[in-house]
């Protein structure tokens, strides 16, 4: 219930923007055989996000270039994460990890962000319900009811969350942030709802690496599901059984 209710609220907030697109979609879908828009926009603007979609991502570590931070930079630009020059308290929604196998010495590079778990520990522990999972699998923080207790940060096995340690001056409209609240990667939900890919995925493709594939895990014919069929992949901390939305190949 809460997810549906929230989904409706979010939908209402986007109503004005989606108005034009929604009307166009209605007209277009009237024509038989014409399906220009995928599932994300197939729903009407009155309809909450649906469980039919589960957004997810595959990180192909074999294509992720060591030292490249295009995804991180794009994320910072997209969400207005300018940083205060204090690395221990500055927010990072996505970060690059350098791994080295202690036995073989083989090096790996990969980005790590919120894994958008199906059963997220952060949502379990949040006392107010500010941490929530949208029906389409995106894990978000409702900044209006986050009290800044940081229990979600204690609970996250990926250290994917940041706490806003100071007043902010560089906010962007699509990513409302607030001093004293917790935040994390939201899969660029504002883009996804407009049928665009997250900023990190776009940046990785622009750099020619194509290490990040975003899509609907439930869509068997979609690019993500096809890629997951093609490449062996794993979840980080698979032992916890969280069924993460982000999967990794090549590590």
């Amino acid at each position, binding site marked *: 219930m809460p997810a549906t209710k929230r989904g409706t609220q979010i939908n209402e907030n986007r109503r004005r923007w989606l108005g034009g697109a929604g009307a166009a979609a209605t007209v277009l879908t009237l024509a038989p055989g014409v399906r220009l828009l995928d599932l994300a926009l197939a729903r009407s603007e009155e309809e909450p996000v649906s469980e039919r979609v589960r957004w997810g991502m595959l990180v192909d570590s074999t294509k992720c270039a060591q030292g490249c931070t295009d995804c991180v930079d794009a994320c910072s630009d997209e969400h207005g994460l300018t940083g205060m020059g204090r690395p221990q308290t500055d927010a*990072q929604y996505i*970060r690059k990890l350098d791994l080295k196998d202690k036995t073989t010495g083989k090096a790996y590079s990969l980005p790590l962000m919120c894994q958008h778990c199906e059963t997220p520990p952060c949502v379990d522990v949040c006392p107010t319900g500010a941490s929530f999972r949208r029906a389409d699998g995106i894990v978000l923080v409702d900044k209006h009811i986050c009290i800044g207790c940081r229990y979600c940060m204690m609970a996250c*096995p990926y250290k994917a969350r940041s706490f806003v340690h100071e007043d902010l001056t560089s906010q962007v409209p699509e990513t409302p942030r607030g001093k004293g609240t917790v935040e994390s990667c939201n899969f660029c939900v504002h883009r996804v709802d407009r049928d665009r890919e997250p900023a990190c995925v776009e940046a990785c493709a622009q750099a020619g690496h194509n290490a990040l594939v975003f899509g609907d895990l439930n869509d068997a014919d979609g690019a993500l599901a096809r890629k997951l069929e093609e490449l062996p992949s794993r979840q980080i901390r698979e032992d916890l059984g969280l069924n993460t939305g982000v999967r990794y190949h090549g590590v």
Partner: protein
Amino acid sequence: MEHDTAMTSVRYQTLDGQSVGYWALLALLALLVAVGYAAAHYMEVQGHHVTGMTNQIVWGTPHVFAVFLIVAASGILNVASLSSVFGKYDYKPLARLSALLSMSLLVGGLIVLVLDLGRPDRLIVAMTYYNFKSIFAWNIFLYIGFLLVVAVYLWMMFEPRMNRYSKPAGFTAFIWRFVLTTGTGSIFGFLVARQAYDAAIMAPLFIIMSLSFGTAIFLLVLLASFDWSGRPVGDDILRRLKNLLGIFVAAVLYMTMVYHLTNLYATEHHAVERFLLVDGGVYTLVFWLLQILAGGVVPLVLLFAPQFGQSRASLVTAAVLVIVGGLAQIYVIIIGAQAFPLMMFPGMEVSSTFYDGVVNEYAPSVPEILLGLGGIALSLLVAVVAMRVLPFLPERAGKPTPVSAAEPTPAEAAG
């Protein structure tokens, strides 16, 4: 109904509250509270970057003080439970003080917790939006419920017409505090992400810690309030409390040992155990020197070695050391556990700009310490004012003449 006559003849009086010492104590505590509040205000206005906390160590020194006070609040009610639940009526005259301190310590701890929130101004949100899968949400009910239950319990004890209900009220409070401390321990016990948590033993460990810390604080407050107001404290009651404290200190050591042995049995936890017990730097030192030695072994010697056993000075020293050791224990549990890196890629060396794969640094900042001390001061201030307003303190504690050594029975130890 042993000592039934003693129970009915107890006379309670308010503190005189006229002395310079009383006002000086009030002023000192009020000053500490004001400084603590100012520190919290500073942290809220500036943002938490002025504290020791980071995105890696998200719960810092205020949580250590808050959890200590909340845990001790539950345990300090044990003295009242001993008379109401276990029929040890020698403790009956102290039940009011025990209940008062349980409420005041809980209030002090909760205030620190709330003031360290990122958005303390949203307390009303925490009271109106609930996710019932969250232990924090349960705890909000458990803490508020505890205050109500103990308030009713106190009313039953104060009001002669309601005295007959004090036993069921005390029993309710007794059950409630076990549930409450189970909830506090489970905040950590249910966290699957971190190597040092995710252990069901956290709940019983916290319960036994609560009894130890609570008894130590009770002893100090008892001696201070009685001595300073000219009330005699009998050796018999001190001996009982001393033995109780000793049993609880030993039990905390035992539970701590079981916690680490359990972790050591699982190979996947060897790294975090090595960190905490061997090469964790300040956390290893705090663990062995403050928690185990100063907070466990030395108090046991002071409490039970014949050459120290009868002296009040050694009893006071032991109680102070138990409190220091308790704060150290919670420091290691909360901050030491966060300092150890998350294990996401076993067998790999990990590095990043977000401090992955490295031991996280944390240094308590002055505002955090002042906030924590302010919480302790608030707890004591509430108690000192309440003792002045209502007759919490009996005219005497224990028997006027020393009696033969009264060893605590198993029921007392269990309480």
